[in-house]
């Protein structure tokens, strides 16, 4: 590399276009932030892969206790799935409204996402409480330990996502849709969509295959 090469780069690419592929300077902060968060989400998928593997290995070891077919209520699971899916949809529309600096619309969509996510959590915790009440708690069998660990970890992620959403709404109200608030909002929406992807694995592997 010579000094001449370095000198020609800024003239070939104006600084306001300086991004991408190393030519003309570093990528915009927004791209860097979201890429870093994407790496975090992938590591979260790796965490869940361990729990999925444990559940898949243990799912037949019921130790004489209740099986999935006896415990799962697929109607509730379908409602949970729809809550999370529509919450992901309203979250996407909310992120879009925020990009377009439509704070009012963003707040409406954020409220919808929150209500749907909370409905999911209420149904799930009712299910958990019912199972524990029937003596099918996590200590009953290896199958139930795996079930509560996998589904419970997903539920904890949803709870964290809802708390994060409250925090984001407070920031939007207090600070407005500034660039750094928008970057945090982008990370939150990625997190929320990723949780829905994990849930697709949960309802397929745990509920649909377990209830057969």
């Amino acid at each position: 590399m010579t000094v001449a090469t370095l000198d020609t780069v800024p003239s070939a690419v104006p600084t306001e276009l300086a991004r991408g592929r190393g030519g003309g300077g570093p990528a915009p902060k927004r791209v860097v932030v979201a890429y870093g968060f994407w790496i975090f989400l992938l590591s979260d998928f790796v965490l869940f892969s361990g729990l999925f593997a444990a559940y898949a290995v243990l799912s037949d070891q019921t130790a004489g206790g209740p099986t999935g077919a006896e415990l799962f209520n697929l109607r509730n699971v379908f409602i949970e799935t729809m809550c999370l899916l529509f919450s992901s949809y309203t979250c996407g529309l909310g992120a879009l409204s925020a990009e377009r600096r439509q704070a009012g619309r963003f707040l409406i969509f954020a409220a919808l996402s929150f209500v749907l996510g909370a409905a999911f959590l209420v149904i799930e915790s009712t299910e958990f409480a019912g199972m524990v009440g029937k003596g099918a708690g996590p200590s009953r069998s290896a199958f139930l330990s795996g079930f509560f660990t996998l589904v419970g970890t997903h539920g904890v992620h949803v709870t964290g996502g809802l708390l994060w959403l409250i925090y984001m709404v407070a920031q939007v109200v207090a600070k407005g849709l500034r660039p750094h608030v928008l970057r945090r909002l982008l990370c939150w929406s990625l997190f929320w969509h990723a949780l829905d992807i994990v849930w697709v694995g949960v309802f397929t592997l745990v509920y649909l295959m377990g209830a057969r």
Partner: protein
Amino acid sequence: MDGDDRVFDDRTPGVEEYEPTANYLSYTVGLGLAVLLTIVSFVVSQTNLLWPPGIPVGLIVLAFAQIGVHLVFFLHIGTGPDHTNNVVALAFGLFIVFLVITGSIWIIANLNANMMPMPVNMPR
């Protein structure tokens, strides 16, 4: 700015900068596809529309299809040159996920098959 002068943007998951008008539509299309795939999954699992021994495989295929819909329509992971970084990271993540899940199932099934028969009076 076209031809050789085109500057490739880095793209980032969750952002679709080039088609601002198509965005509401793309989320709605994604939602429709995801709802459809979910309903098909539930129906397939509860009926014998599919050849019964093939149902688990069918459910896994449907789940992968739905995960693909989520990645494309909600997270906006695409195939264009600007997405290279995101797709490479995703491929590596999926590789690890695949290794952990299939490796665990394979090894534990093998161990289970090689277990000595357990005596009846052994405490469980």
